[in-house]
């Protein structure tokens, strides 16, 4: 039993920290630390900084521009970037589509799309969910009918994160209506500037615009944008989802959020003393800290198993359940910590009318963030679905 990193891994961590110290602009990390939303340009700026260092897609095979890191190195990188409050790397192209293209795409598709991702020339979004489908992704109703050297696509996608920024969307479409729901699904790359694509905002609980509905009406998509074989899309989709779930514990993000909460709890005062010394609040904070320390080790145990070659299966479901619950708990504690100043609407939300922050600076975005993070236990396969997987796979029930 040895919980420590090896000397090489420690050296790698030092290298990552030095890079972040030198290259991560404070105006970006300040925004992330305060829970404020980054603009499209700011996200692209961070992507470009990572790309220059060759770290934008470290998990890709080296021949396509990956960094050739071990599982442990990837974990260290994730922890360190979260600790430094680096912006989130938008995963839809780099972490979801790219592995599918690398495994199932044609040489021409790989040669065209992968370098464009590294250069930041496309903003990809995900066209999986449809209205009324929820976590049942196989119930795809969007159709793609072959017409010469094009597919004609009709249907609707929803919960499309950052669809308003995107110029490309990868979609699950139904190319054959017969058979089981999982059959007849194909995987299509759609140019969102095509005629017939309409993006409509969905305003969420926090009053913010992050997700969208995408309407596809007689959209003509060239057949060379079909990934792999027609009718095999469900296989590719499942492969993609294994990538979606691996980093869902969000230990790094929780650690950063807990650090911020500690600062707020020392600043806020309750009954003439710092809130951090209020026994009731201190107990809540301690429970979260203990759970996080436990989860860090649980995550490392899964990472270590993966490093030995074990494919993370239902373990990633376990990490998703606990990791998302913990992040929500920390955000709820942060909301609790700011007291009455949890009520004002933050000034930056598109539906907001407030011109400037109200109350202490740290209070501004905390309720919006708490509300926004309610999504964590719903998306990426709801926690109820994850519990089904754990019950079936880990418990044999």
């Amino acid at each position, binding site marked *: 039993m040895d919980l420590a990193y090896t000397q090489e891994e420690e050296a790698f961590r030092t290298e990552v920290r030095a890079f972040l110290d030198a290259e991560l602009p404070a105006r970006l990390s300040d925004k992330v630390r305060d829970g404020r939303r980054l603009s499209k340009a700011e996200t692209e700026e961070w992507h470009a900084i990572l790309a220059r260092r060759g770290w934008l897609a470290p998990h890709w095979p080296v021949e396509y521009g990956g960094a050739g890191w071990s599982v442990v190195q990837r974990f260290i990188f994730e922890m360190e970037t979260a600790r430094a409050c680096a912006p989130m790397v938008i995963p839809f192209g780099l972490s979801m589509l790219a592995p599918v293209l690398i495994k199932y795409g044609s040489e021409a598709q790989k040669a065209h799309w992968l370098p464009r991702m590294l250069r930041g020339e496309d903003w990809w979004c995900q066209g999986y969910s449809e209205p009324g489908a929820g976590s049942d992704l196989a119930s795809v109703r969007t159709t793609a009918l072959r017409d010469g050297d094009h597919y004609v696509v009709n249907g609707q996608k929803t919960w499309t994160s950052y669809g308003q920024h995107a110029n490309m969307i990868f979609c699950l479409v139904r190319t054959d209506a017969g058979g089981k729901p999982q059959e007849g699904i194909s995987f299509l790359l759609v140019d969102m500037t095509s005629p017939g694509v309409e993006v409509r905002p969905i305003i969420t*609980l926090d009053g913010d615009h992050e997700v969208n509905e995408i309407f596809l009406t007689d959209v003509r998509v060239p057949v060379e944008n079909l990934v792999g074989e027609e009718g095999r899309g469900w296989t590719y989709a499942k492969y993609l989802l294994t990538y979606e779930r691996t980093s869902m514990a969000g230990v790094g993000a929780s650690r950063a959020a807990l650090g911020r909460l500690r600062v707020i709890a020392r600043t806020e005062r309750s009954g003439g003393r710092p809130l951090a010394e209020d026994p009731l609040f201190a107990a809540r904070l301690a429970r979260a800290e203990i759970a996080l320390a436990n989860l860090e080790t649980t995550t490392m145990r899964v990472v270590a198993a993966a490093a030995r070659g074990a494919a993370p299966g239902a373990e990633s479901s376990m990490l998703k359940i606990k990791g998302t619950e913990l992040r929500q708990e920390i955000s709820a504690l942060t909301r*609790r910590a700011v007291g009455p100043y949890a009520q004002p609407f933050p000034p930056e939300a598109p539906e907001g*009318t*407030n011109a400037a922050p109200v109350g202490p600076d740290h209070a501004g975005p905390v309720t919006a963030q708490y509300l926004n993070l309610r999504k964590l*236990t*719903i998306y990426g396969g709801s926690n109820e679905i994850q519990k089904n997987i754990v019950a079936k796979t880990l418990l044999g029930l």
Partner: protein
Amino acid sequence: MDFTLGEDRQALVDTLTRFLRDRRGLEARRAAAGAAPWHDRETWAGLAELGAIGALFPEEAGGFGGDPFDVTAVFETLGAALAAEPMLPALMAGTVFALAAPDRLEGLIAGGRLTTVAFHEPHARYDVSDVRATAVRTAEGWRLDGAKAVALHAEAADDVIVSAREADGDIALFLVPAASIDMRGYATHDGRRAAELTLSGVAVPPQARLCGSGPMQAAVAVGALALCAEALGVMERLKADTLDYLRTRKQFGAPIGRNQALQHRMAELLVEMEQARSSVINAAAAMGADAATRDRALSAAKFTIGEAATRTAEEAVQMHGGIGMTQELDVSHYAKRAMMIDHQLGDADFHLGRYIALSAA
């Protein structure tokens, strides 16, 4: 033993429910949410006319109710309709008037001048006795200085009852014309308006001093009771909408409510909600007791509500899935109100702490 509302109270609840449904549909509410200064005088006059404001105050003060169970009946109905009318400020200001300036209550009950209260200060969290604002005697009356935090509906109010410390260190309440206060208004997450108040040498006449701190404590007590009752109405609606969704929403070929895991979670919510209702009944029954007994029961209720309402809101959103995250559905608006009630007049921790302190005394 009788836990029913009684005929008269039930009639008021029915009338108020119908009125709010007609006047304040969610569409209208959404359109008005957060807009400045947000106050619909016509709806307010309607509420006064059907007796919703008068029901909060006793007959000897000019009302026609005033029993704590009148207050809970009215506020539960407001909660069920997600009404954002300034009824809480009216209740709290009216309670001060009833004790300290009864001649002013009639106008408030009639829906005339709207008065709100500003007891909390930016540094003081939920503690209304932590007051730094000052009131200094002058030749013409009083001079007020200080800052007040998150004053509900202050922009829409004609007058504000402000707490301030006098030279001897005691807290007193002053009636201040809203126009003489520097206000920074803003929208809140639950679609209402509040404001940060700055009083810089505000001069008021001698009669602006209404009373000492006793009526403030009474107003805060009845305000907390009202918020607890409002939360019950909000929670009932969250439960109804979620049940409806579990019965109708199909996934993997069956209504999601067929899942035993979800059935058990709803069963737990139901138990928690009944416990919460009992805590509010306990608190209403204790309103006439001595201050310590009253406040202990109120803290028990506000603590119970704080935990139960937040849990109900989170579960309602979760069981709705993605659609529960959107502004499209009523459930998200009810959920936010349930969550924000915990940030008004003391959250679950504040009241658990006060309950422990009062139990030890």
